[in-house]
């Protein structure tokens, strides 16, 4: 097997084994209902995590995702419930706004040469602050269109439901994978993460690519906010607090290196599913308290970075060659 795929294979294997162990203990977990709920409950996290994957592969970080989700949800709610716009129009406005917001952050990162950590921290404060100014409370959305979308589902064999937002998440992962591995933009992202200087010397337009990466991340954050507003039928300024760290954890568990230049969009899907699995297991167990979720995710995170460290120190020479090739 190509050593490139080893961390990804290890992550997938661990997910399959963990899921198998869960099923051995609780046979009820082997059902398409559980799988369908997995997708629906983690849809917004998954969509946001695809954006985080691109940012992290490029060697950056985006702390503003959670705040963008909150802001997008509130703006949709204000546009639909207070101004009476049709949700589709509201979605268009929100997605455009999000992309512009991300592009602005990318532009600051590129042109001022400042660490993404601080720029996106400012973006996080700004987005969260704007959302709180728009509304302090949760704004309910009771448009018939929302009900129509949430009633859409595809019945899986075994009684499970693949909801519209679950399907949307899978589509985002599919498109994310295609963009990362099959387009010029995708290879630019890898090149930038591997080594920005050599990328620039090889003719990668680093400015537009950086702006594009953060625009994509915020665009997906906006989409995740729309999905979250569909999921909860409301817009709330404090929604999805800390989701940026969950999505970063999902990306890292999925085998993407935080140093940039290496990773897979598909791995992030496994990372999101593993976090969902931990939560579902704790619900099934019933005796474990909710704080075990946090501890388990922390331990998982540790095990995966340890695994990566081992894989990469064993193939350090190979990894260097790969980076040069990427």
């Amino acid at each position, binding site marked *: 097997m190509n050593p490139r795929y080893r961390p990804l294979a290890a992550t997938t294997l661990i997910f399959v084994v963990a899921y198998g162990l869960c099923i051995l203990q609780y046979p009820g977990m082997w059902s398409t209902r559980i799988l369908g709920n997995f997708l629906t409950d983690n849809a917004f996290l998954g969509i946001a995590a695809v954006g985080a994957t691109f940012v992290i592969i490029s060697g950056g970080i985006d702390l503003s995702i959670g705040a963008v989700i909150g802001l997008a949800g509130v703006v949709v709610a204000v546009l639909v419930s207070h101004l009476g716009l049709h949700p589709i129009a509201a979605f268009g406005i929100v997605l455009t706004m999000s992309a512009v917001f991300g592009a602005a952050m990318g532009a600051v990162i590129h042109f001022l040469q400042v660490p993404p950590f601080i720029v996106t921290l400012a973006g996080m404060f700004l987005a969260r602050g704007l959302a709180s100014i728009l509304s302090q409370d949760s704004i309910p959305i009771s448009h018939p269109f929302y009900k129509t979308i949430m009633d859409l589902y595809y019945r899986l064999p075994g009684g499970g439901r693949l909801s519209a937002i679950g399907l949307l998440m899978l589509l985002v992962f599919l498109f994310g994978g295609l963009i990362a591995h099959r387009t010029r933009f995708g290879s630019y992202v890898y090149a930038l993460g591997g080594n920005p200087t050599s990328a620039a010397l090889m003719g990668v337009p680093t400015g537009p690519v950086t702006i594009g990466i953060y625009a994509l991340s915020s665009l997906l954050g906006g989409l995740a906010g729309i999905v979250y507003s569909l999921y909860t039928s409301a817009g709330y300024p404090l929604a999805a607090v800390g989701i940026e760290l969950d999505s970063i954890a999902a990306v*890292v568990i999925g085998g993407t290196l935080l140093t940039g230049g290496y990773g897979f969009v598909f791995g992030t899907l496994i990372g999101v599913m593993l976090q969902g699995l931990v939560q579902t297991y704790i619900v099934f167990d019933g005796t474990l308290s909710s704080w075990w979720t946090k501890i388990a995710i922390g331990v998982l995170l540790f095990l995966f970075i340890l695994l990566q*460290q081992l894989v990469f120190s064993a193939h350090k020479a190979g990894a260097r060659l790969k980076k040069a090739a990427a």
Partner: protein
Amino acid sequence: MRIPSVKRLLSPQLIALLGVLLFNWIVFPGFFDVAWRDGRFFGSLIDVINRGAPVAILSIGMTAIIATRGVDLSVGAVMAVAGAVAATCAVTGQPVIIMLLAPLAVGMLCGLWNGFLVSILGIQPFVATLVLMVAGRGVAQLITEGSIVTFNDPVLIFIGTGSFLGLPMPAVIAIALMVGAHLLVRRTAIGLFIEAIGINRSAANYTALRSRSLVLAIYAFGGVCAAIAGTIAAGDIRGADANNTGLWLELDAILAVVIGGTSLMGGRFSIPLSVVGALIIQAMNTGILVSGFPPEFNLIVKAGLIIIILVLQSAKLAPTLDRIIKQRPVQPSIQTSEKTG
């Protein structure tokens, strides 16, 4: 210590702090009133120092960590763990010395864990400390068994709300820690070592610097600082709240360090200026509260402040700005931007 020259005293951070305080005074004329009551000072200014102390203490440890080109995201969670330990010790009636040392020991353990991941295993600081940030709050809840543990221990309450020489105890601790840490890094070679590691770790290694153990020690120090802040926070509310103690304070601490002029890329650092950064953040919070603005504006003002600092510190713009600033007597760019914020 050397007497700092006037030029050094007029650092952009101090001017910014004065600007924010001046703004507070304009919107709330009683801002500088300080009263003496019940053997201690009272007033908005004292309140800024008191409320800013936990972030200031965090920023002291964070400065050293960021100077080595690292970052510690777990300090908020470590605060929660330390607070939980202190409260549990108080409730179970441990001797005072154990009650005070146990949280510090736990904080140091947390810091050593981070340091182990960063320094020995060579894991990126961001993700290495993310582990404890995620898991730490779970551990804190495990210690308090999910409830808010309240206590009536006079010593812990004194640390959180008492006063010494008329100043609130948290501020006294922060000042003592700041002076101690500053002397330690500037009167010995440690500060130079830290900067050497931050600027170029492998070069530091080639000069026979034991960067491994030094980085380990610095993360341990960061953990101890977080534990002190956690004990203060617990004493302040007379209880340990595993969910909310120190929540998102790691971001404030990092922000304070960045405002203080320490680059996230490591190297040059200043502990007192980080503390000034923490005070700027708190002065803005207090200013927005006393001026009657809705607290939501706080985040926007904070974002605006970061953007201004980014522009000022930006590697590309800094030389141009320097030229502009040198042509004028004071630094007007900061003052005006603070007032508009």
